[in-house]
């Protein structure tokens, strides 16, 4: 088993599949009355969150607690971090506390890689800057597999701000490792030439959402941050929504079996219409539940053994 989960690129197909299979067993166990499992008793998991992300932190916290790990939440606000302590000094503190795993969310791309140099325990990337969010990709893959039965050969459209999306990066890496065919869709400003070049072997690029939808098994809508407008990536929310938003009319172009995903939090009415978000095709609530099972699997596989 790997030691850290810093990037979806850390996962080869057998390892990724093992995580998804383990998550399925974890999900089955979570239906019972006693949800706690003793596997990580005596182990310490630190949630080191430099960015507010209540949903991700709670998901990791629930996962670690269900496996009986001791959980320490170390959030940037009101801690030594907000007093200017460096990542390295924080790492040394966590090291002295005997953290077996550090789950880190950070606004700087690559912060988990840096952290891994300074702690002996496992490092799990819970989102770093505009780089990656590998457990989100794992839960997305898990959701696709449980809804559609497979990943190999699945046609997945990832729509929106690919350039700044850590979810998109991790999904492209993981899904292509597992045999899915990914198409990136969005305005050219948000899928510049280098994105295409970096990912071209594995993915296709389209600027036309309507053309892609009829041949998609999965359409994953990315959150579009409104500050991108100020930076001239697109002229207005209205124009973005008209060209790249998933509304009811567009949803009808999808094949019967296709599902609609969103990593949350959503901008309803911007990249996704409320009717679409709440439709039976939407897996948005499922994704949240699956997140705990997938994170249990990751923590167990990283920390459960020698």
């Amino acid at each position, binding site marked *: 088993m790997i030691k850290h989960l810093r990037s979806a690129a850390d996962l080869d197909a057998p390892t990724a599949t093992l995580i998804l299979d383990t998550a399925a067993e974890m999900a089955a166990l979570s239906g019972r009355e006693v949800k706690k499992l003793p596997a990580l008793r005596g182990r310490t998991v630190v949630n080191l969150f430099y960015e507010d992300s209540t949903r991700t932190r709670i998901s990791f916290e629930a996962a670690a607690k269900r496996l009986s790990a001791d959980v320490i939440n170390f959030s940037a606000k009101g801690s030594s971090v907000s007093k200017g302590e*460096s*990542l*390295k000094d924080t790492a040394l503190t966590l090291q002295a506390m005997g953290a077996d795993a550090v789950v880190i969310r*950070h606004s*700087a*791309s*690559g*912060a988990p*890689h*840096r952290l891994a140099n300074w702690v002996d325990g496992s490092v799990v990337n819970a989102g*770093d*800057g*505009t*780089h*990656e969010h590998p457990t989100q990709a794992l839960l997305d893959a898990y959701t696709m597999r449980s809804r559609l039965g497979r990943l190999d050969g699945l046609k997945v459209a990832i729509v929106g701000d690919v*350039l700044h999306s*850590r979810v998109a*990066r991790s999904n492209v890496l993981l899904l292509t490792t597992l045999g899915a065919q990914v198409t990136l869709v969005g305005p050219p400003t948000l899928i510049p030439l*280098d*994105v295409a*070049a*970096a*990912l071209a072997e594995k993915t296709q690029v389209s600027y036309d959402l309507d053309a892609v939808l009829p041949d998609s098994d999965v359409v994953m809508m990315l959150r579009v941050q409104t500050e991108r407008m100020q930076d001239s990536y697109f002229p207005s929310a209205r124009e973005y929504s008209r060209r790249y938003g998933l509304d009811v009319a567009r949803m009808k172009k999808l094949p019967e079996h296709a599902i609609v995903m969103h990593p949350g939090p959503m901008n309803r009415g911007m990249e996704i219409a409320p009717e679409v978000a709440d439709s039976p095709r939407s897996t948005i609530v499922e994704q949240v539940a699956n997140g705990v099972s997938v994170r249990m699997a990751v923590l167990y596989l990283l920390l459960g053994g020698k």
Partner: protein
Amino acid sequence: MAYLIKGVSILGAAPADLFLKDGVISDKADKDAEIIDGTGLVALPGLVDVHTHLREPGREDAETVETGSRAAALGGYTAVCAMANTSPVADTAGVVEQVWRLGREAGLVDVQPIGAVTVGLAGKQMAELGAMATSAANVRIFSDDGFCVADPKLMRRALEYVKAFDGVIAQHAEEHRLTEGAQMHEGEVSTRLGLTGWPAVAEEAIIARDVLLAEHVGSRLHVCHVSTAGSVEVLRQAKARGVRVTAEVTPHHLLLTDELAAGYDPVYKVNPPLRTRRDVDALRQALLDGVIDVVATDHAPHAVQDKECEWSHARPGMLGLETALPIVLSIFGPQWELIADRMSRAPARIAGLAGHGGDLTAGSPANLTLVDPSARRVVDPSELASRSRNTPYAGMTLPGRIVATFLRGEATVLDGKAVK
């Protein structure tokens, strides 16, 4: 002190004896001369760096004029041009004279201050360039390095104004609107790593503008740390048209690529950023062709805490003085004429340093360095004379050992060690 260097090869020529006396190269031996065995060594004119950050005043925890001077001497340099982005900024005669005096006191290399183009490097108002030029520091190169002189009107005026005292503007070419938040070269690697890109065009667009401005006003322009293949093409065309432009390239841009960012170790973070293999190849060719005139280190010491952190929080810059010649040797081999020109004569000419970059013939100032090209050394950051440790070459085995350096006939380095 007089020296007799026995059996040394001047620029790769057949071994001969070299005499130093009274600060100049002499044509006959002094009977009290200290004898240095030059067997297997190559004598080069003392190297000249037109782009060094010495950090004093302001960041003496990262480097001082003295420690930087020692690093320079150990690297074979006899003169360095100290960039203006200190704190306070070297934008007045007072600050440049202070740096110049500190250099004299250290006495290891000639420290030639560079003056800021604009007050506080703010890009708004021209600094008192004439006062700096006529100060004791005798400033000839002006640069806002670290920042681009972005305003085209201000750049035009500065280019014109310094003609009165044969000055030159050294431009840090970076169209800042295209590099907001930039962390590394914009390309496939930056996309993969999720780091905001610094596009090549942001450099090329400014160089293109500036060569046109220099052509328009008939002024000299020097371009700092050229890093892209596209910039090389712009310079090649400008030089072919007769524009008075010179350009520098750093050892790191001649050797390293953006792939090194993959581990997010900020020791590889630098501005302009490491580019691609294609750019590296174009820069090497340009240096050979003379499209790029000089190798300049952009020696940029940083305190440990400014590099032992997240990539995007780290300061850009790398050490360079002690490794520049070995890096160049590793790339180009023992092309001593090329090395002497690009690392000594041409930079001395650009900086207006008359006593440096001369031929090693009788009567010339005895500014020279002795290199053992057959020695190989592993770069160990802890052994560097610089106060900082941010070398990207740690652990690399590099050819060439600087055995001795002489500044006006006095040894600053002997037996590979600084004399003081």
